[in-house]
């Protein structure tokens, strides 16, 4: 069953049509790759899905409900979480607080309860602390739980960003170039981690990536964008042999 679907999605900046007729759907627990040459509009798709930009045309349906017009934080609360191309962590606070912040909307206690430490505060804080540690364990970050996020090495910062996105309990996880800047071993590890979280958290994954081995190795379905339009769709084998895709990447006719 499809959890996220876009129809006729498009946006233009001034006169420039950056995306046109983008039409794809993601099923529950599916891993989909969004690829295309630089400037094809991949990150723009993410920005439309999360209300960073407002689409000029089309609909985005999450569980059958149109989310165009919802605010970014509402979209996150409703089930789409993302990471960023250039990591955006809360750098000057601890690793575990990065994760707890993303769990904020699942907590209920009031401002007064927080200030005067009512039982609701103690109960929920305990619960969230437990969940946050569990989540960090999945990413082998638990030992660094109380370090500042800025002191983590690059690869772990990428992982923490994914952990933070997962902490919002998403139905769909959007990963913007998760393997960028990683060495081959780290990339292999990351593929394992992504499969693991898909199984463990039952989340659909839509990812943008330039590393073709990574994309071909992990994605069950691949969507190719070029000049703001979808030029091909299919599994790894089909995409690899699609002449349009080859042309787009190699600049042929």
């Amino acid at each position: 069953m499809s959890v996220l679907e876009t129809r006729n999605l498009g946006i233009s900046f001034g006169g420039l049509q950056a995306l046109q007729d983008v039409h794809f759907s993601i099923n529950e627990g599916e891993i989909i790759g969004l690829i295309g040459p630089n400037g094809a509009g991949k990150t723009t798709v993410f920005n439309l899905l999360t209300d960073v930009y407002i689409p000029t045309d089309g609909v985005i349906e999450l569980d059958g409900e149109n989310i165009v017009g919802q605010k970014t934080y509402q979209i996150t609360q409703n089930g789409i979480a993302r990471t960023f191309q250039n990591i955006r962590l809360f750098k000057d606070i601890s690793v575990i607080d990065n994760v707890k912040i993303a769990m904020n909307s699942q907590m209920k206690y009031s401002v007064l309860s927080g200030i005067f430490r009512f039982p609701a505060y103690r109960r929920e804080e305990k619960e969230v602390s437990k969940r946050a540690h569990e989540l960090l364990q999945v990413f082998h970050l638990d030992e660094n739980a109380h370090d500042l996020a800025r002191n983590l090495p690059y690869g772990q910062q990428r992982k923490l960003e994914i952990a933070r996105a997962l902490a919002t309990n998403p139905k769909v996880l959007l990963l913007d170039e998760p393997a960028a800047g990683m060495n081959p071993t780290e990339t292999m590890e990351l593929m394992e981690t992504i499969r693991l979280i898909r199984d463990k958290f039952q989340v659909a994954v839509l990812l943008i990536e330039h590393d073709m081995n990574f994309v071909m190795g992990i994605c069950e379905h691949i969507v190719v964008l070029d000049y703001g339009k979808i030029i091909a769709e299919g599994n790894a084998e089909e995409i690899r042999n699609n002449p349009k895709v080859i042309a787009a990447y190699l600049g042929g006719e």
Partner: protein
Amino acid sequence: MSKSKKISYAITLVFVVLLYAVVALLISQGTINRYYGGIITMICINVILTVSLNLASGFLGQLVLGHAGFMSVGAYTAALFTIHSGLPVLVSFPIALLLAGLVAALFSVIIGIPALRLRGDYLAIITMGFGEIIRVLILALPFTGGARGLIGIPAVAPRKSGINANVLLFSYVFFLAVLTVYIIYSFIKSRHGRAVIAIREDEIAAEASGINTTYYKLLAFILAAFFAGIAGGLYAHHVGVLNPAKFDFNYSIEILVMVVLGGMGSITGSVISATVLTILPEALRQFSDYRMLVYSIILIIVMLFKPSGLLGQRELSIKKLVQRIFDTEKNTGKVKKEEG
């Protein structure tokens, strides 16, 4: 709760109670005269102002250049209430303080809703404008006493009641300062505080993590204004005469300087710097001509060599101190055993 945490809470509590008892006793005996009593009162008021501004500027990361404006709203609200309510001052003053906070908070909502939607320095500029507008309006309005000042603000305890007004005023400012520190500290440690800090760190990432950034910005801003209003109410009844010139841009800046010097995002830093910077100008009084010159040079030098303020984002923590003492005890214990 861990043992060291419990011990540190106990130490803090004992320290606060002792400090209060000693100072209150000295004031009641007249050992601390009016002049020094006044400085102590101003320290407490400045602590409230600094800690609350730190919430908006240090933790939320929004520059506010009109904190004195909220203070003045509170000051005039409280003073007008105790003057005109007809209630005995022992009753009307606490109500007036609450009103002072609420009215200041109301103003912060009016300013905050439009200004906080935008990213960047808008809040700084708009609060600056607000502070100036309020000052000018106070000068022009018929019921505020204008430039001559608002007079006839009653002391916090009437003379015939037998209560020492100096001690009572000190009790008010002291416990409200403690309460402000406590409330803002535990707010910061709650989920709401984490959300506020997340906005300072990265607004876009916070929004993408499900944080309603407009709501939390407004919440922190309102809390900050509420306490500034209370500080104003206390100030009004401390000085007895309100002059709008006191609440100008320079006073807003003075509070901001206290926040930054103590450390943006450090509550203990704010308490220390509010205390030191209230005493410093008084201590430098004998050099009156050079006083502000020295002050400005210190300010520039501290910023150049310690741009994050004295404590940065760290807190002075009794808990850590306790842990350290316990650790050394353990260690010395070990050493002794080995020796034996």
